[in-house]
């Protein structure tokens, strides 16, 4: 009985951790910067890329300042 209970608690904790990690990963991967140019071209840079990471961090700071 005790081992079944322990298994259930472990399963619940593991599920919660999994959900948390999945949500965090999903949130991170959505971050990007879309650049639109005068000639009609679009460049989308993933937030994970080094060149975009700084720009996305800058954008996050601006959003924070705007919402203070």
């Amino acid at each position, binding site marked *: 009985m005790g081992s079944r209970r322990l298994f259930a608690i472990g399963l619940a904790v593991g599920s919660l951790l999994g959900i948390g990690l999945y949500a965090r990963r999903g*949130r991170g991967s959505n971050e990007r910067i*879309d650049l*639109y140019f005068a000639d009609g071209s679009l460049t989308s840079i993933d*937030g994970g890329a080094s*060149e975009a990471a*700084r720009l996305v961090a800058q954008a996050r700071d*601006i959003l924070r300042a705007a919402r203070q």
Partner: protein
Amino acid sequence: MTDGKTALAELMEISSQIETVVLFGADGEVVASTLPDQRAKQVAASAKALFEEAGRAGMGELTHLEAVTGDGSLFVVREGDLLAAASTGSEPTAGLIFYDLKACLRKAAEKPAPKPKPRAKPKAGAKPKTTRSKDSGKS
């Protein structure tokens, strides 16, 4: 130039997705904003720096950008000598936001329509003009 505040008020009226907006010149000077002065200046300076840095990442002339973050999205749009920086929540309709911001910038940059010239008063001694009807020459 049309009052930037009027253009901004109209924008906030039609767009339910935009939370805050700052209109500023290419020199970073704030034209109109939904934020208090100090914060508007800070946002304008940072958005200008972000736009310039992002412009260096591409080959051509950057006209607008959207930065998607976990906290929401930041839009920066340029139209002539004016720029707008707007914040929204998560997953906004980007096309609509860009359209509304560009329309707002165009409106803010519009020159006011010239006032109609006052009609010249008739001179004191001038004869009043009379119109002839077609029938007046006959019979």
